Structure formats: structure tokens, C-alpha cells
């Protein structure tokens, strides 16, 4: 962690009383640690996005196109006509403030413009000025603001300080979803080339190679082969992990971090062990080698562009249906956008588990099933032999990732799996889990190092709850089903709640799974000795 990182004492000195001028004043200070760097021109160029250039947020001159104002206003008009959500949310907020202290960034920073209502007002004030009669006539008296460069900079700052987690929307009496407004805000910024690299580079990579990390097909194969070898070393069982195989029943799509990041990697080992053990007829794809979709953090158009490969590949390979791995924002896209954008998936069949014959009717149209739904069904039907004692070294709590919780309602499936693979499980406090879960603070493409202070601030509410169960129940691992979580929660917890690891749910499955022909296992998928093995050693 960088040396300039503020100490926990500094970060928890939060004063919630707004100070100084009215929020109508747009000026922001781009302070190191609280913003992300601009998108590299080559990435914008590759994607054909507007205004590629060298610039940074702290520059005075953002090198906007000369007609940037017209572009933004035309973009707003177009979106007001296309999204009822946007238009309605511009019109009906009563500024009751119920959403204010529901945002992790506000709780962690005390910056009033991180209250969801004010985040939305940043754009609503411009809407008033150019699209409503009162705003045109009365101007700032009714909270209308001219669209100036300072306003644009302020948008950039605060729309990249929202992780699109939707927590505010749960509490709003009209369901106003500031994530939706942030998405539109980022789309507008994209029109004039104000993007961040941590979003655009993965998007460009994904468009080219199929995945965010830019891993080419041979690299993909190497990673998978390596995982197969490693799994054999741990379990003594050699599994098959076919790639681009035509005629398989199922296409399995996962976030690329699963085969390139830690602790994601142990989740991958879990999937591979599971699929082998139940004899699933499946294939991976080096083309659809990414379930995640950083288009979600760019524009609706980019979601569609990056997502198109999933159905295209399923069709080319001739599979019957699709299973998706553990990833949060990926599932927002698969659940709420994919079918509408790139469907209908009439070349696929309604998913039926080949093992239990359960028909997944809830995915009858999209024809893609979440791995947790699939595995929970297997366990329920008693089709897995599980030795739960092999997770006895873990004392588990579960972090609901924002998107599965608030955009899907996938809440009990992972818990069911954990309860059936681990013996010690403790929930965090009620108002920090399920639909009220707190974001990791680094979602929606903000998980970059230069943004660390903001991430630590935004992640505090989550970490605070983890610390609570750590101290109360001795919890030592935070389970989650999201690739961004797995990447960003470890440093967050190391800072706020040391001594708690992060793991995917299928890592526990892989640990507990008794495989046919396995050797006498003494370590988990991380190569750590099982609790029983530790005891044996202590007795010897």
C-alpha cells in the first residue's frame, strides 16, 4: 500500500455536517487518492469512442471538443426520450434525504455530494436549466445550473465515486436508483471522452481478446491447463477442462479473474473439481473467456457490444444452455440485460440439470443459470459427497455482492451452499447483508490503486461489519460470489479488519467435495493443511 495512504484514524474522522458553500457551486478539488486516471487514448481509439487524447483529471484544460456542451445536451435529450427511468428520476425526487446516509461513499467520506440525492442533483440541476420551464425562467433560485466545464468535472468526480451498487434505491420511497443516473451520467461523459482507464482498458481488451485482462487464446489455455495440473497435485484426480469444444451440453462462462487472480483461482479449482465429479458435459471458450462486462460501467451500448459474444459463442459451439460463474456485475448484465440486448436465445434450450433433471424455469428465456443455483440444486438432491470437516479451518461469514442481491435476488443459494460445506457460519448484522448489503467500495471499475483512499472510505461500512463478526464470533473468512470483491476485499480487510481472508463459495465446495479416486487429501485448494491434519500433527 502506498506510503501516502492515510491512517485509519485519519479516515474515520468524518464530519457529516456539510460545510461551506451551497452545493450549486460545482468546484471540486482532484485530490490524490480520490479519483481515477483518465482513459489512455489507444483504448478509446480501439473501441471507436470519441475524443481520444492525453489528459488527466487534475489538468486545467480537459481538451474537450469545441461543441462539447451541445453534445452533452443532445445526449441528455436523447436519453430522456429513451429511458423512462432517467426521465422519471429527474422529475420526482422530493429531496427527503432518506437515501443520504445509505451510500457507503457518503458514510465513509462525509462529502455531501456523495449523498445519492445530491449525486443525482448534479445532473438534475442541469436538467432543470435546459429541460424545464421553471429552471429556464428562475435559474439558480430553483436549483438550476448552467452546464459549464466545472460542472462536467464535478460529474466526472462524483459519477466515478458511485459504484452503481443500488443500495440507495432500496430505501427511496419511489425506488429512485442513483446507479441508473450514474450510468447515464457516465454515458454522457463518454460522449466527450471523459473516461477512466480502469474501465476502458478492460473494455478494450475484452473487445479484442474476449476478456478484460487481454489474455490471448493460448494464454487462456495455459492458465486452464495449469489449474488442471494443480488440482491433480492437490487431489490426485486428473480432470478434463475442454476449451472451444463443439457439441457440449453446457457452455461455462466465468470472469477472467477466476483464472488469473488470487483468491479467485481457488474458486476455479472448485468449479473444475465439481464439473468433473458430476460428469458435466461442458466446454469453456477462449473467445467468451469473460463473463464480466466493463461495458456496464461505460454505456448501454458498450454492454451490448461486449456481451454479444456470449450468445454468439453458445450458438457457434452448439451448446444447449449456459452456466455462469461467480461474478457480481456480470450477473447484473446476464440477468437484466443480455436477453433483451442480444436475445432471443431461441437456439438454446430451457436449462435442465443433467444430474438432477431439475428444470430451471426461472431462466426459461435467458437460458443461463448461476453456478450457485446449479450447485445448490445438486446439494439439495444429495448428488455431492461432501466432507464438511475439510472446511473446519474456516469460520465463515457471507458478503452479498451488490448486483446478485439487488438486481437478481440471489440471496439464499450461496448461503445454502456454505451451510452445506462449512460448519461454522455467522451472518453479519442485518442491515449490512442481503438487500441492504454494503458494497466493497471498489465496484463499477473504481478498484484501482490511485483511488485507494476513496476505496478504503467507501469500503469501511462493509469492513466494519466484517470486523464486528470477526471480534464477536472469530470469523476468519469472508465468502463472496464476485470477482471484483475477491480482488478488492483482501486489501480492504487487511487495512480495516486484519486476519480475515476472502474466498469464493465454490472454493468451499472444492474443499469439501469427496472425489472418486482422490488421494488422501491433507490440504485444501490453497495448499493449507485441513484443520484435522493440523490436529493430527499436533498429536504426533
Amino acid at each position, binding site marked *: 500500500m502506498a506510503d501516502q495512504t492515510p*491512517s*485509519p*484514524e485519519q479516515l*474515520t474522522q*468524518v464530519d*457529516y*455536517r*456539510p460545510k461551506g458553500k451551497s452545493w450549486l457551486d460545482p468546484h471540486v478539488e482532484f485530490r490524490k487518492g480520490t479519483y481515477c486516471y483518465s482513459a489512455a487514448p489507444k483504448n478509446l481509439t480501439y473501441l471507436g469512442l470519441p475524443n481520444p487524447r492525453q489528459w488527466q483529471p487534475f489538468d486545467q484544460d480537459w481538451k474537450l471538443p469545441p461543441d462539447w456542451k451541445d453534445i452533452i445536451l443532445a445526449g441528455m435529450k436523447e436519453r*430522456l426520450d*429513451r*429511458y*423512462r*427511468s432517467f*426521465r422519471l428520476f429527474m*422529475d*420526482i425526487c*422530493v*429531496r*427527503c434525504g*432518506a437515501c*443520504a*446516509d445509505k451510500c457507503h461513499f457518503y*458514510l465513509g467520506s462525509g462529502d*455531501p455530494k456523495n449523498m445519492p440525492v445530491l449525486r443525482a442533483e448534479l445532473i438534475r440541476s442541469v436538467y432543470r436549466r435546459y429541460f424545464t420551464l421553471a429552471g429556464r425562467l428562475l435559474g439558480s433560485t430553483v436549483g438550476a445550473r448552467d452546464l459549464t466545464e466545472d460542472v462536467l468535472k464535478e460529474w466526472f468526480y462524483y459519477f466515478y465515486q458511485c459504484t452503481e451498487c443500488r443500495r440507495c434505491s*432500496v*430505501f*427511496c420511497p*419511489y*425506488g429512485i*436508483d442513483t446507479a441508473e443516473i450514474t450510468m447515464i451520467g457516465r454515458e454522457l461523459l463518454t460522449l466527450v471522452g471523459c473516461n477512466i482507464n480502469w474501465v476502458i482498458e478492460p473494455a478494450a481488451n475484452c473487445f479484442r481478446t474476449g476478456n478484460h485482462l487481454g489474455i490471448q*487464446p*493460448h494464454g487462456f*489455455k495455459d492458465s486452464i491447463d495449469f489449474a488442471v495440473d494443480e488440482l491433480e497435485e492437490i487431489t490426485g484426480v486428473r480432470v478434463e477442462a475442454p476449451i472451444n469444444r463443439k457439441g457440449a451440453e453446457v457452455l461455462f462462462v466465468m470472469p477472467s479473474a477466476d483464472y488469473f487472480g488470487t483468491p479467485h483461482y481457488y474458486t476455479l479449482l472448485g468449479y473444475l473439481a465439481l464439473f468433473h465429479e458430476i460428469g458435466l458435459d461442458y466446454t469453456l471458450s*477462449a473467445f467468451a473467456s469473460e463473463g464480466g462486462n466493463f461495458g456496464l460501467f461505460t454505456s448501454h*451500448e458498450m454492454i451490448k457490444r461486449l456481451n*454479444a*459474444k456470449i450468445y454468439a459463442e453458445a450458438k457457434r459451439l452448439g451448446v444447449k444452455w449456459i452456466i455462469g460463474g461467480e461474478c457480481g456485475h456480470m450477473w447484473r448484465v446476464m*440477468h*437484466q440485460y443480455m*436477453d*433483451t440486448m442480444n*436475445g432471443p436465445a431461441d437456439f438454446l434450450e430451457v436449462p435442465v440439470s443433467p444430474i438432477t433433471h431439475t428444470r430451471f*424455469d*426461472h*431462466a426459461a*428465456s435467458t437460458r*443461463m443459470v448461476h453456478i450457485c443455483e446449479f450447485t445448490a440444486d445438486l446439494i*439439495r438432491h444429495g448428488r455431492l459427497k461432501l466432507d464438511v470437516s475439510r472446511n473446519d479451518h474456516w469460520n465463515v461469514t457471507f458478503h452479498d455482492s451488490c448486483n446478485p442481491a*439487488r*438486481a*437478481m*435476488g440471489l*440471496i*439464499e*443459494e450461496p448461503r445454502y451452499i456454505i451451510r452445506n460445506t462449512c460448519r461454522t457460519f455467522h451472518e453479519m448484522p442485518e*442491515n449490512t447483508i442481503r438487500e441492504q448489503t454494503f458494497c466493497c467500495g471498489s465496484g463499477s471499475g473504481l478498484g484501482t490503486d490511485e483511488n485507494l483512499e476513496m476505496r478504503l472510505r467507501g469500503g*469501511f461500512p462493509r469492513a466494519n461489519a466484517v*470486523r464486528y463478526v470477526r*471480534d*464477536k464470533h472469530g470469523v476468519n473468512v469472508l465468502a463472496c460470489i464476485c470477482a471484483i470483491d475477491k480482488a478488492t476485499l483482501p486489501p480492504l480487510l487487511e487495512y480495516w479488519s486484519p486476519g480475515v481472508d476472502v474466498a469464493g463459495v465454490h472454493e468451499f465446495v472444492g474443499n469439501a467435495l469427496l472425489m472418486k479416486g482422490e488421494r488422501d487429501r491433507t490440504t485444501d485448494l490453497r495448499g493449507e493443511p485441513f484443520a484435522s491434519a493440523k490436529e493430527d500433527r499436533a498429536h504426533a
Partner: protein
Amino acid sequence: MNALSSLVVVLLLAGVAWVGGALALLRPVFGLAVPGLAAGIFLVGVATRVVGWARTPVPFRIPTTCGQQRSLPWIKASWIECPWTRSGVVVRMALEVLLFRSLFRNTRGAITTEPVAQGHGTPAAAPEGFPRAARLVYGEQKWLWLAALAFHWSFLVVLLRHLRFFLEPAPALVGVLAAVDGFFQVGAPVVYAADIALLAALGYLLVRRSSDPQVRYLSLFQDYFALHLLLGLVATGVLMRYYVRPDIVAIKQLTLGLVTFAPVVPAHVSPLFFVHLFLLSVLLAYFPFSKLMHMAGVFLSPTRNLANTSRMRRHVNPWNPPVKVHTYEEWEDEFRDKLEAAGLPVERE
């Protein structure tokens, strides 16, 4: 500042109406023309707004799920908070509209460094320099919900009670309502519970808006204006009901005349009544252009009124545009060497 200026505006409006009500010449204007016009603006305005929203497409099915989805039959799904049937959505919306379900969830959260009671959330072994007590605490926060609920419901009751001014004979419902509402009679005239609730709720909302530092910071002129306007309306109503007691027969002549399109302006109506009527007119005319439209908008909110059936049933986006994608063929061409070297199958050799 906003609080004060909006109060001044409302007082000015009231003053204008008082003068208008006192001058025989202006009485037809304030008694007939203005209310008629205001009602017209209200109806046309609200209809235009609602039609405008309704005609804007809902490209994606994006409900906010607040409970367990319907997936496997043995997992108990939350049919109201995460509905997948029409009836589930209807109940969810009804709870939202009638009981303010989401507002009921309200809590108050803040980081505090206050010392904590032993054994409650303090890190057992705090690392060097760790702020032992810095933690996030949450408190119950139901007052906003209660005040909002009290305001809306009592406003409705008072509105319905006013039907007796517009219908002859007054519907039985109004009598029942008045009887129930006036149940806690303290003296004569009957004190209506709804009047008290209405004033108390509006008072709370105003105090909250102007004293809570966060809400005060984000409040705009129009937020106070709406509250002051409503307070003015209610205050004049209460004054007339309990203190001034104007000529009800004359007023009824006027109001009945308004709704039957046979306008009459009786001579002996108190100027206070004109203030009441004028503030109502302003409210009506202002309504379609204001945040008060949330009354209609709440029904159309896509995060609440859609079922979570995104994977069950296809949702069609009427403007779904074609986009530039990277096809498999292009991808294979670009990486052919690498695919072949890695022994991965290709479409074209």
C-alpha cells in the same frame, strides 16, 4: 435563506388573495376565474406529464430486488419484495403507495468514535494505532416515515371531508369519515384528528428540513415552498373551521357553482376564505410542474413496478439498436496462429 424566501412568497400570495377577497371588483377573479384556471392547469398538466412518462420506453427490466428471487422450488422466495407474478407486483406497489414500505426501512448511519460498552464491537486485539472505537453505528429512524404517512393520509381525509362543499347532498362516506375523525371530541366545535395530524406532520417535515444539517444542505427553494404553501392552506382552513367561522352557506354556494359551471360569487364571504382558495389554486397550478408529481410518478417507477422475471420472460427494448461487435470470425483470424499453436480447434484451417 430558501426557507425564508419561500415563506415570504407564500405570505405575499396570501396577501394578494386577502386584498382580492376584500375588493368586490376582484372577487369574481379570485373566487371563480383563478380556481377554474388552476383546476384546468392541474388536470391538463398532470395528464401531460403522466402521458409523457408513459410514452417513454422502459428499455430494460431493472427492478430493485429486495428479497429472495424465485429460482429453485424449495428455496422460499419473497413474492412481495422480489415479485415474479403480477399479484406480487401489485402488492409490492400497494405497500409502497399506501404504507411507504421503502421509507419504513429508513435507518440512520454514521461513523462514531464514541467509547463503546464493553464487549460490543470493539476489536479484541487492536493493531498498533488502530482507532479502537471508530465504527459505524445505525439508529432507528422511523419519524420521517411516520410523518410522511401521517401527512398523506390525513391530507386525504381532509380532502374527502371537503366533498361536502362540492356535492349536494354530501355523500354518506363523508359523514362516516367525519364521525370517525371527530371521535376524540374535546369540545365544540368537534376537533378532527386529521387536522391535528396534518399540522403536526407538516410542522415536523418543515423543522426537519430546516434543522437537519444534511437535509437542510440539499433543500431547494421549491422544497420549502411546497411545505409553506401546504401549511398556509391548512392553517387558513383550520382558522376558518375553529375560529373565524365564515358563512358556510355562502361558501357552499360558491363551490357548488364552481363545479356545476354555474358560477356565483356571494357577497358575504370572508377574505380568509379567499386566501384559502387562492393557496389551493396556486398548489393546483404548481403541482404538475413540481416534485409533487411523485404522486403519479411512483406508480411508474421501473425499479418497483416491474417483476423480477428478467430471465424467465424476454423483455423487449423498442429501440434496441444494432451495435458494432467483434465477431468470432474476426477473432479467429486475428489469433489463428496462437489458436493453432495451442492446439485449439478452429473453424477455418
